[in-house]
């Protein structure tokens, strides 16, 4: 049987609500990264020696913080996009990605019951800690009644949410959609990555030969995604051209060292968008700073983009910051400045890919954002800023 997937029309990005340790203004975040402003610190109180990128507001338990993050960003995206002037709330979908919801309520349960705590929690607890509880509350608050789902594909969660939203909106299955995701740092993530020996004691160094692991961070982003045909160019901040997803089927936490499915994911994104590698102006790498991930990603990108990638990577590693470089292909890795946002990483970095300042004549050329996660989940998105995008100075 032969089957030719139908790539939907580009979709318009009409708002982005980002959150990170560098703030909540996309232009300010990009400017801070470009200037190499140190932003991660050791004063986090999680009991491990590894710098983290914490949000300024740390009040409340992690589940409450996540709810507040999502709620604030959704409100901002709805207002900034003007989406509610074009669609009824019942027609707006909400697809979110997160990996840490439920932790603080579960911890409180065990703290409250001490040694007598039932090992399996309680039905009441279990009803509150699934991602659906978060989604239901957000849908209720904003009266959003289009398709809703919580995506849990580890560190690709929010990128997967955007990819799905693009497919559904671009094909007319959903009228408009808010998509993206957030994570906050919990003791579970800290202890989990610590026991895997993946936390770098120093600021992370993606793609360096002496890289030694990740730094954790908090945040993410929510995108407002609408059909391109209904949006005038002046409203659109940018566009999602398409994307792809693949599965390594190799290991639960380490990538296929040959990077085969990463390569296929990138190549399929280009094919779906009818783009050639030489048409891409910038690549936002997943760039975690771990030995195995960076090696597999670099191998895959080198095979797709050839010497343009190698030259761009050399410039990135030399500067370890986002530059408005002169290389034809700009390669960026932003986790040294934001930390690894886990489920929120893909959305924030897609925004950073779109907003990164590059040569003026290349400014509206397509950019790719790569996200990879535990379980061998790979997502690649192709985006570009609109000519009127003013988020970056």
């Amino acid at each position: 049987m032969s089957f030719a997937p139908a790539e939907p029309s580009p979709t318009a990005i009409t708002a982005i609500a980002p959150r990170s340790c560098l703030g909540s203004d996309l232009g300010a975040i990009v400017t801070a990264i470009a200037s190499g402003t140190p932003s991660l610190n050791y004063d986090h109180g999680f009991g491990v020696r590894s710098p983290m990128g914490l949000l300024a507001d740390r009040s409340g338990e992690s589940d409450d913080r996540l709810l507040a993050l999502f709620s604030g960003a959704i409100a901002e995206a709805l207002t900034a996009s003007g989406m509610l002037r074009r669609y009824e709330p019942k027609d707006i979908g909400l697809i979110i990605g997160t990996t840490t919801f439920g932790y603080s309520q579960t911890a409180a349960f065990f703290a409250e019951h001490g040694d007598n705590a039932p090992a399996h929690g309680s039905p009441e607890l279990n009803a509150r800690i699934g991602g659906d509880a978060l989604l239901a509350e957000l849908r209720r608050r904003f009266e959003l009644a289009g398709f809703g789902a919580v995506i849990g594909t580890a560190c690709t969660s929010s990128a997967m949410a955007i990819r799905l939203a693009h497919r559904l909106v671009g094909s007319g299955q959903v009228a408009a959609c808010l998509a993206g995701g957030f994570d906050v740092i919990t003791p579970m993530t800290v202890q989990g990555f610590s026991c895997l020996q993946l936390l770098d004691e120093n600021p992370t160094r993606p793609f360096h030969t002496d890289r030694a692991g990740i730094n954790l961070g908090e945040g993410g982003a929510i995108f407002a995604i609408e059909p391109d045909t209904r949006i005038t160019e002046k409203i659109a901040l940018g566009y999602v051209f398409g994307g792809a997803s693949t599965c390594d089927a190799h290991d639960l936490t380490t990538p296929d060292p040959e990077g085969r499915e990463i390569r296929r994911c990138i190549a399929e994104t280009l094919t779906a968008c009818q783009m050639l590698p030489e048409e891409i102006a910038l690549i936002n790498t997943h760039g975690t700073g771990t030995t195995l991930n960076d090696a597999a990603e670099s191998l895959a990108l080198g095979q797709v983009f050839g010497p343009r990638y190698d030259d761009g990577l050399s410039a990135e590693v030399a500067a370890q910051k986002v530059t408005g470089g002169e290389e034809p292909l700009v390669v960026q890795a932003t986790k040294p400045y934001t930390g690894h946002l886990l489920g929120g990483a893909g959305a924030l970095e897609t925004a950073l890919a779109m907003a990164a300042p590059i040569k003026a004549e290349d400014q509206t050329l397509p950019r790719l954002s790569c996200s990879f996660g535990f379980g061998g989940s790979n997502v690649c998105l192709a985006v570009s800023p609109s000519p009127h995008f003013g988020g970056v100075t």
Partner: protein
Amino acid sequence: MRLAPKATILRHALDFTYRGELSATPNDRASQKRLRRYTPLQKTLTELLYRFQQQHPNAYKDLHDPSLSQVIYGTALGELGINMTQTAAITHDELPLSPVKFQRSVLNASYSQCAIEHGITSAATALARGFLTTDAAIALADMLLAAGDCAHVLVLIGAENTEAVLQEPAPDDAPLAYGQALWLSRHLSQAAGDFILADIRQTLSAAEGTNDEADADFLGLVPWQPPIAGDKGERIVRNASGEGYVSHWLSVGTESPGASS
């Protein structure tokens, strides 16, 4: 109810309740050694796909073609038991955590282990929607098929019986985990045994539903069941918030693809 020229068709449905016994999974020494380390939920999904391979070899082959097929893994709470024990360990300062358990605690980990076992590299999404997980996964599959994203979607549903898993020893007859595999396709023609998804829509409040909504018969999940003879083919599920899904299913012929435990 009007059917689109290309309707989403439920071509195969399998389910499996794991009580400590596997039948389709290879039982050679290497497989046994490998499977011994799997969680009940991982074993359940793995067994389910071996049964799928035995009963529907052509569909299983298509599942391995990334240009044809995608996977939507729906699980309300994933490996809840592992998450509970990990959180309890942190709360009681019993550190360090187990690296193996931490890997398995991620929502998509059980499917990922299954994908490794079966060598499936097709695009895979993991979603959670609580009580509505099965229907949200079906609705997403229906939209992706209608969008021309792929020709087939495997909706794979998994749930762990946390209470049984965490009991030492587990009760002999307690189900340890449950899984369901639904093979959905977009086709111009239908065959005997197929179920056509005439429509599926979300409902916003209890007022929109009727009183015959399906019961959650496994850990808050509502498995898809073939409409029985004479049934109007309507499936209604609703959560405590009043949100729900209503779907209509038409059977083709008399042969049922129904469930096989």
